[in-house]
């Protein structure tokens, strides 16, 4: 794999203010939905982001596209900082970065024909010739497995899997380089899920796409991604190559997450790590390491000091005090 980062996210933060005060202008509290996330995505790869509900996966995805304005941090797309672009430049850049949404039922305008939905990016990106647009729509529809007859229908006439194909077609038509897929299959049935995943893989091969694949389903992520970032409460706690992560999860949270994965066979009984307590609220995160109240390997230092994301092995980064030593070893041994 040529290590050529197409996207570099550096210390990205997205805080949602909770407004209050006499004129509703004062920010009382902040929801730290994304709180200092950094990772690189290389050209042609699939980068997975996993984590529990509310940990900031979607927010990360949307902030990269600037559907949400980042609070802080850099987003370098092919070396250009997206966060600095003007609104209009950003709009144009969206030709290159696209998104597929989780909910195939909510992400299509119910009052637009499929043809119009798929065609829309072309209109936005200045393809004025109608015939040209029509041709492209047909082309891309065929690629995702939709028939010409279906193009003149409305979304409610389609099943979930088909709708997700429409969403993919819409994302593909502008020939993007990077696609952020925000839980593209979690609303789909198992049998349909595999259809869509296979389709996405086909398209990746054909067009050399790069994916950021957001999911909470660990088995799907394992299947589909090359490298994976594990998020917890707005932070990346572990980033690693998938095999490395699944074989030797380093962060206690990743470990628990993997062990919580239901077994794929009734006789294969696993030793489960049952975490105590619930995911805390991002508006009021615990001090120190945000995972420490639920952590089964919690040290004293965890309660007060925030760990940072550091490489433990090559291509395996973790943010945990347990690996402080390992980190130092690498830091002296490696020069990165």
């Amino acid at each position, binding site marked *: 794999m040529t290590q050529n980062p197409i996207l570099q996210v550096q210390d990205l933060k997205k805080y949602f203010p*909770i*407004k*209050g*005060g*006499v*004129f*509703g202008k004062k920010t*009382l509290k902040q929801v730290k939905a994304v709180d200092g996330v950094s990772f690189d995505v290389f050209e042609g790869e699939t980068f997975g982001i996993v984590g529990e509900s509310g940990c900031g996966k979607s927010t990360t995805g949307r902030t990269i596209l600037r559907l949400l304005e980042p609070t802080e941090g850099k987003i370098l797309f092919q070396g250009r900082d997206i966060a600095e672009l003007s609104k209009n430049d950003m709009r144009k850049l969206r030709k290159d970065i696209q998104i597929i949404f989780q909910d195939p039922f909510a992400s299509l305008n119910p009052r637009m024909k499929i043809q119009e939905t798929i065609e829309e990016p072309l209109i936005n990106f200045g393809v004025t010739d109608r015939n040209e647009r029509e041709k492209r729509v047909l082309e891309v529809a065929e690629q995702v497995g939709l028939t010409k007859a279906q193009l003149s229908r409305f979304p409610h006439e389609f099943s979930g899997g088909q709708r997700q194909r429409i969403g993919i077609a819409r994302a593909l038509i502008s020939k993007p380089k990077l696609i952020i897929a925000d839980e593209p299959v979690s609303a789909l049935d198992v049998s349909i899920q595999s259809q869509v995943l296979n389709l996405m893989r086909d398209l990746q091969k054909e067009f050399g796409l790069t994916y950021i694949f957001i999911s909470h389903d660990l088995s799907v992520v394992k299947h589909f991604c090359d490298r994976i970032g594990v998020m917890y409460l707005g932070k990346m706690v572990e980033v690693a190559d998938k095999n490395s992560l699944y074989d030797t999860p380093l962060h206690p949270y990743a470990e628990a997450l993997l062990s919580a994965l239901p077994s794929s066979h009734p006789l294969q009984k696993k030793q489960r790590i049952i975490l105590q307590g619930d995911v805390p609220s991002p508006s009021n995160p615990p001090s120190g390491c945000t995972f420490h109240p639920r952590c089964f390997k919690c040290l004293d230092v965890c309660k007060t000091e925030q760990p940072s994301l550091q490489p433990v092995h090559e291509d395996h980064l973790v943010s945990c005090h347990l690996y402080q030593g390992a980190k130092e070893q690498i830091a002296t041994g490696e020069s990165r």
Partner: protein
Amino acid sequence: MIAYVIRRLLHTVLVVFAISLLIFFSIRLTGDPVTVMFSAGEPTKEAIEEVRRNLGLDQPLYVQYLIFLKGLVTFDFGESFRSHMPVMDLIMERAGATLALAIGGTIVSILIAFPVGIISAVKRGSIVDFFGRIFSLIGISFPNFWLGIMLILIFAVNLKWLPSSGFEGPQHLILPSITLGMILSGILARLVRSSMLEVMNQQYVSTAKSKGISDWAVIIKHAFRNALLPTITFLGLQFGSLLGGTVIVETIFSWPGIGRLIIDAINQRDYPVIQGGVIFLAVIMVVVNLIVDLSYSLIDPRIKTGGSGRA
């Protein structure tokens, strides 16, 4: 919470200020109070000027406005041109009658709309639903004056059951309350029905049913309690505007309410009363709005007023 209330009250001040400007200048477009006062007699120019001077109408508009504003701050709206009574007293005199009618109308509308709305929703699509809806719509299908006159003819003149007008005993409240209530109930029943329909699709209604409690307990305790929220909002706002008066019903039933006070003042171009009355209404509306919002938390523990929650 306190901050929220203060913020809302500040908004009120803004709205009231804007209304004071609007009302002050717009009524001055519609004719001259002194001319109205002299609608008989022999008004020489000088006499008119004299009266105008005495009423302070000869001063430049901005001065008059500032005087009005100054009074506003101290809740002193000045004296009526016509009765020379302090405007605030005139308004307060009617508070009782207005309140009684507002409450009466609201109660009637609740008595009609809640059962109709609930049954319609529970028996959705049935014949009961059909007639319930038609019935609740009848109330809003007649002009209110017509409805009022008809009620008088039927219940007072022909059947001689009820008095037709005035503000005396509780029986005088019945017909005007029905008139108002019928009108309100049409919209209210509809609202109850649709909120009920929405709520009945909620999972917690199924949960309640799965507990094995009776159907009516489910409908009333679980569904209706939750459907109450939008209903209360509507009723609250409606109550606010009823307090502002319902001119026509008050006129038909000779009810000494605030609506009639303001309409009479408008007809007489009694500026201080119009100004005071309208400002009073505006304040009532905003305050009622606020109370409605605050009362949510009584019905729905989820709603903690504060933060971004502003309608």
